């Protein structure tokens, strides 16, 4: 959106209603999730989603550092979303830029809305998300990976958080934008859903959508999140080899 000066705009939707990579408007990119790939972290997950590769790790509940952030009535959540220098086309200088800091903040707030932080006063639950290869939707992939890592670490929470972006591409509402769609589309709206409550804990949006389009996008995004949610539960089942259909989310602690 607003890509001033961009030269050639690819055909984002063909006559058959297929997108640049052959997907339908309501179709997710291929996704695979691996729970527990890291040994030092308390919980971890690796998510490959389209051409995104994202690793997440969780440490805690543990001592708060720096100390002055400690809260006496609950755990604090500290999330750090970071992109590897080589994860994007043009090398990104190492360190947190403003975009990373904003994303870290909204992801932190999304998880603060579901983790039972009051069970661990005076501690910190630290979430690290590393984007190793990026192709639009990294914050959603990061949320999914972090959700799995939190479950892997045994952090009690109301539900897994599922996430996907929805947007407007060639005038149509489309699920799970890839890079070209994000760059040349008309709108992008990352969402994160708590499936059991049906409420959104992350909403961002940029571009142009009218009332009806927003409504359609929220519907499609919610549906996409529920699809992701099932994959997440499957990944956790695979990890722990629990019989299918069993674990109520409350039991994850």
């Amino acid at each position, binding site marked *: 959106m607003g890509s001033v000066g961009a030269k050639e705009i690819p055909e984002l939707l063909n006559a058959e209603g297929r997108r640049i990579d052959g997907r339908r408007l309501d179709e997710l990119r291929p996704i695979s999730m691996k729970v527990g790939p890291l040994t030092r972290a308390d919980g971890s997950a690796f998510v490959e989603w389209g051409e995104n590769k994202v690793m997440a790790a969780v440490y805690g509940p543990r001592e708060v550092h720096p100390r002055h952030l400690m809260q006496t009535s609950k755990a604090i959540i500290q999330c750090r979303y970071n992109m590897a220098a080589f994860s994007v086309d043009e090398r990104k200088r190492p360190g947190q830029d403003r975009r990373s800091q904003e994303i870290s903040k909204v992801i932190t707030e999304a998880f603060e*809305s579901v983790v039972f932080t009051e069970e661990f006063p005076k501690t910190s639950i630290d979430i690290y998300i590393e984007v190793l290869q990026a192709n639009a939707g990294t914050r959603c992939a990061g949320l999914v990976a972090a959700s799995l890592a939190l479950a892997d670490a045994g952090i009690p929470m109301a539900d897994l958080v599922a996430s996907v972006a929805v947007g407007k591409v060639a005038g149509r509402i489309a699920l799970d934008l890839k890079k070209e769609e994000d760059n040349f589309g008309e709108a992008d709206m990352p969402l994160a859903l708590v499936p059991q409550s049906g409420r959104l804990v992350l909403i961002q949006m940029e571009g142009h959508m009218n009332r009806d389009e927003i409504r359609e996008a929220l519907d499609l995004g919610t549906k996409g999140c529920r699809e992701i949610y099932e994959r997440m539960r499957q990944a956790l089942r695979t990890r722990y080899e629990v019989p299918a259909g069993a674990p109520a989310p409350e039991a994850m602690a």
Partner: protein
Amino acid sequence: MSEAVSAEIQTTHIIDLARTGHRLDGRGVDEWRPVTVEPGFVKSADGSAMVHIGNTAVLCGVKLEIAKPYPDTPNAGVLTTNAELIALSSPTFEPGPPQPEAIELSRVVDRSIRAAETIDLTKLCITPSEKCWTCYVDIHCLDHSGNLIDAAQLAALGALTHSTVPAKRFGVGDRDYPLEVSHFPIECTFVRLGDKIVADPTFEEETAGQGRLTVATDEAGNVVAMQKGKIGAFSPDEVIETIERSFRHGDRLRNLVRGN
């Protein structure tokens, strides 16, 4: 009584009040505090506006300088938004590098202006690949009594709307001329208090709030930006309802900025 305990009592009180459709300062759930926009407050800027929303005060100054276009946008100028949550404005802010709250503020304001194509950046190009205007939008919060985002966005839009391109001063034109503003996005922020979603929250309401939602709408009926913030959640229906309310408030505030 400790500060934490007194804050918790106030939070409970604010939420209880909201349940019955009332607010601490007597406003209705969808009612704003008085809003004023004072353009031209700072003479050293190329454009400026002081905005008050109730006691909340935000000053925005615009400066235009000559720079080189970015290699990937050789035909466009540059727009840069920066917000400083200076320690003068609130006991909760500290001097130092921008904190996440300030970064989110500047990015959310920037996003509404950029997504709405408020300024046509190609018109800020002077010589392709060689020379362009960089438009700095600097937001200076003076009194943080709640709803900084809307005050900051209004100040930014107000400052841009009354800005001059200093072409003569920089020797790239015969005369200075007004900066052309193509679209007028307005950002409206709400917080959840129990089952109510209230507009234009005060500082105390933000503290008590269970989720914050900001919606930017333009004059053509588009949503151009959204941001959910803080701990809390919204249902899709609540989002839709909040958008409708944003369209209504947006029209009124837009007239204020444009001086209609």
